[in-house]
Structure formats: C-alpha cells, structure tokens
C-alpha cells in the first residue's frame, strides 16, 4: 500500500457515504496513478457523482481515507483549498457563470490570484490575456469570446466548462458526463480533446456514452451501488457477466 500511496495522484480507501441510511458510497476503494486517464461507468445512482463530491470536499465521507498526491488528506480540506491544491471539476449539469462573458468565465478560472485583496487590485496581464486566447481557441470558443455564457448552446457550455477547468491548470481533472446533450460530432471532438488533455494531466471521466468511452481507450472502472464492480479495459469489463447484468445488459 505504501508504494501506491506515494505514486498515486488519487487514493481512496474504504470510503463510505450515507444519506439518511442509504449508502451512496459503500467501502469504495480506488486509485488513479499520475498521468493516468480513467473512465468510470455505472448505472444511474451508482455513486459516480457522489464520489466526485467527496473528492472535491462538497460531501464529507463517513469513514475512509482520501489522499491526493500521496500526502494531502482531502477529508480535512474545504472546497477552495482542494481546488487550489490542483483538483478541478466539471459538473454533470454544466455550470458556467451565465452573466459573465465567455472570456470572463475563463479569466476567473485562471490559476493564480484567489484572495480578496489581490483580486481587488489585480490587473489582467498580457500573459493572462494570451493564456485566455489560447484556451478559447483550444475549446473552440474564440468566436464567442465576448458573448454572455448564458447565450451559449448546451454543447458550447460543456466546452466552456472544460476550458475553465483547463484554465485552473489542475493536476487532476474530474469530468462528470462531458458529452451529455452533445451531437455525435461534438462527442468525437470532445474525446479527442480529453485524450489530448490526458497527455499532461491525470483525468477521471464519468460517462454513460459507450462509444465515447471506447474512443477514450483507457482503463475503465465500473461502479455499482457505491463500490467497484469491475476494473479493466472496456472489452474486458463489457464481457463481465455481472457488469452485463447490472448495467450494459439493460
């Protein structure tokens, strides 16, 4: 366990969360290595989003160990500290700052200034402006830079949120259902983008879309009733009887 502890970017051991007696996470253990991209699948209510809530400090686990980078105990930190450590998150329902422009959404997400008085007096630097333009290009929103985020299509909002995630420059990205509501073409583009991002980040992607997961071509973890049901390549887990029973077969 010690080598795992030090080499893993994310280490969950025996994590349980219950809501009014219902176990959303049930002794979940799960490790993501540095630089790895991991796909998570599982039926509705399996606990995928809850797992992300626990990692990002939104929900506190009842029991269990939660380590980031081998040394940071995430159960002791609040959302802001966890984000500042380098864990970024994209939500299942895209949440962007609707009354800000696309550019300002990215600006606010840029890693760097976070405290009250530095933001009060901060002036956007040339370097920041260039970073923003590069990010906008990367998520294909350069043309929409000055539009309000509220005016974007659903797919564009998803991409904006990925852009915001990249702007934070986290070492671990948690991406919850990034292609929900996207067209097939957009889905393919998103897979390409995520594979590119995974080259220099650790990424955990939750998704129901099997062709998308196949495109990602990474190790898959199947969650069911709050714990890991199977783990391996997509081909291997899709051949697993139990996985077919609870998820794929339906």
């Amino acid at each position: 366990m010690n080598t795992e502890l030090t080499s893993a970017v994310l280490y969950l051991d025996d994590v349980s969360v219950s809501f009014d007696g219902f176990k959303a996470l049930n002794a979940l253990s799960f490790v993501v290595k540095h630089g790895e991209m991991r796909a998570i699948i599982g039926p509705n209510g399996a606990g995928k989003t809850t797992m992300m809530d626990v990692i990002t400090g939104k929900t506190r686990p009842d029991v269990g160990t939660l380590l980031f980078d081998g040394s940071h105990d995430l159960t002791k930190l609040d959302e802001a500290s966890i984000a500042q450590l380098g864990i970024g998150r994209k939500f299942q329902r895209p949440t962007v700052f609707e009354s800000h422009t696309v550019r300002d959404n990215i600006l606010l997400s840029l890693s760097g200034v976070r405290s009250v008085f530095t933001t009060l007096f901060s002036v956007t630097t040339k370097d920041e402006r260039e970073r923003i333009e590069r990010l906008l290009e990367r998520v294909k929103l350069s043309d929409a830079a000055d539009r309000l985020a509220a005016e974007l299509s659903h797919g564009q909002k998803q991409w904006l949120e990925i852009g915001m995630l990249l702007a934070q420059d986290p070492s671990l990205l948690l991406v919850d259902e990034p292609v929900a509501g996207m067209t097939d073409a957009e889905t393919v583009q998103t897979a390409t983008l995520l594979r590119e991002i995974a080259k220099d980040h650790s990424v955990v992607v939750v998704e129901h879309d099997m062709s998308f997961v196949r495109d990602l071509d990474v190790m898959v973890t199947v969650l069911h009733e709050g714990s890991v049901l199977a783990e391996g390549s997509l081909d291997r887990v899709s051949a697993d009887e139990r996985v077919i029973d609870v998820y794929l077969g339906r």
Partner: protein
Amino acid sequence: MITKRLFEFTGLPGLLMLLALLVLAVYVPYANLVLEKGSAFHLDTSAVVLLGKYLCFAILALSIDLVWGYCGILSLGHGAFFALGGYAMGMHLMREIGTRGVYGDPILPDFMVFLNWEELPWFWYGFDQFWFAMVMVVLAPGSLAFVFGALAFRSRVTGVYLSIITQALTFALMLAFFRNEMGFGGNNGLTDFKDVLGFDLQAQSTRIGLYLLSILALIAAYVVCRLIVLSRLGKVLIAVRDAESRTRFIGYRVEHYKLFVWTVSAMMAGVAGALYVPQVGIINPGEFAPANSIEAVIWVAVGGRGTLVGAVIGGIGVNMGKSYFTGAIPELWLFALGGLFVFVTLFLPKGILGLLSNLKRKRAASEPDGPGTEPVKERA
C-alpha cells in the same frame, strides 16, 4: 482621452447621473441663495434639506445594491448600519451642545442629567472630538457587519435565512436602543443639536453645505462601488451571486468575498446615516425599524437591482413619491409602496433602469445594420 476613460468607467447611465448631480450641486444653491423669494424658480431651504435627505437615502440604496445586486446577499437590515452611523454622528452633535443644553451641564447630554446619571458612560468618551466621531461613523457599523458577516458567511447561511437574521439584527438593535439604560437617549433618541464644527445647524449656509457634502458623498460612494464592481473582485462577486458553489470549486474562498463587500457596504450605509442626522436634526431608535430596511430594499428593486444608477434613481424617486403621498394622501402611502413593489417584481424585474436599457436595445435592433444590432452586453 480623459472623457473616454471616464465614460468607460461610468457607462452612459452613470455619466448622465454624475452630470445630473453636478447640475443639482450648482443649481440648488443658486435657486436657494441667489434667486429672489418671489421668483418661480426659488427653492425654499426646507426643499434643500429634503433633497439632502434623499441623497442620503440614495447612498443607502447604493450600499444595498452593492451586496444584493452584485453578490446576491439580500439584506433586510441595512437600516441598522445607517442608524449606527447616524448615532455616531448624533453623539458628537450632542456633546457639541455643551453648556447650551437645558440643564447646562458641560459634559453630560440633557437626557443623562434627566436620568440622574453622575458621569458619562465610557462609550461616550472621545465623541467630543469630531475626527473620533467620524472614525466611529464607519467603524461602528463596519465592525458590527464584520462580526455578523464572519459568523453568518462562515456557517454558509444564505438566501432567505440570511435575510431573516439581518432583519432580526436590526429589530434587536431597535429594542436595545429604546431602553434608557443603553445610554443612547431611549425612545427620544438624540436631538436638539446646535452646531457642527462651529457652524450653526439652523443656518441656511450650513444647510447648503450639508447638501453639497451629501452630493459629494453620493458621488464618492458611486465611485467606490464602481471601482469594486469593475475590478476582478467584482467579477468574482457576480460569480458568487450566479453560482456560489461553482466559485468555490474554482478555488475562491467565497465567505471572504462576501465579508469584504458586506463590510464595505455597511460602512457606506453608516456614512449615509451620519449625513442624514444633522440634516433632519434627530436620530432615534425608529431608524432601526425593520420596515425602514425593507423600504430601502424596495427602492433598489424599483430602480433596478445590480445597476448602481438604478439604486440612486430608486432611492431618490421613491422618496419623492413618499413625500408627495404623505403630504397629500398619507393613508395611501403604504398601499402605493406595496403596489409599486408588486408591479415592479411582476413587470419590471430589472427595475426602471432595466426598462430604459430594454427600450434602447429595441430601438437599436430596429435600425437595420446599425452599429447597435449586436445585443448590448449589460456592463452595469
């Protein structure tokens, strides 16, 4: 160049408002001091005082808009900060009376002599100094807001719950200030002021001076608000208003941002109260009444939340309406106010200012290929 920078800073509504305030700053003293009494354009001193009062209300409205319009914190207790600033000023004015009081005590204000108090309570120390009182005008409401906000925001009290406890705060203060033992004059409050810095408060020139100071303070408050909302911090505030938890997951410590803007806003309300008291000549616990705070929120809603200029328009406009109504048909005022609020909530969610900018947008959109065909972004 400078005008262009100024325009970028204020936007069109802001610039028009500043111009209007400058015109008022010149015209009102002129109409009061220079124009003959018989002239149709002559302004009575009482009208000047009334205008000065509205200006103070406009500052209060700005302070509410800063927290409500930009950070989503609906305060139903801002009257408390206004009143605290007013009391700090009133305490100085009380001590300025000196031996000219009814009982002629050089140190103790009349009400303390009347209550047979032997000496000045410790919290009245220092208020004989003008500078000390001015510091307390911002420090008293500021520190109360800081402590209250630190507790409330850290425990993540939001929405209706927060509004209710702000209301409870002002109500509790009202009950406390009503008590004689508190040492703030009980239900009579503080009054019978004579002068400030040697200027007779009844003198026409002092009245004009206070009026001009109110305009200046309103402009300063507007500039401070504008500096805040245009900064990156201002963008964070709007982000908090629209998606609080998202802001946290990006790494901003939301409670610090709320605490900052909340405290600044309370101080601003305190300044408004301090300017209000010498103009109306009295401060009493009635200023803490929950209804006052609610009324102030209505001004902002009517003028247009999250626009600053709208808050000023609402603060002045609604109070002009109130003066008219309470003079002409007093029993109808509360109905009119309530009706106005319902009307605005239902039909003008962005207030008067929102209506104006909508009209502008429609006109721009109907001009084919005009420069204004792109939807205008609310820079507010």
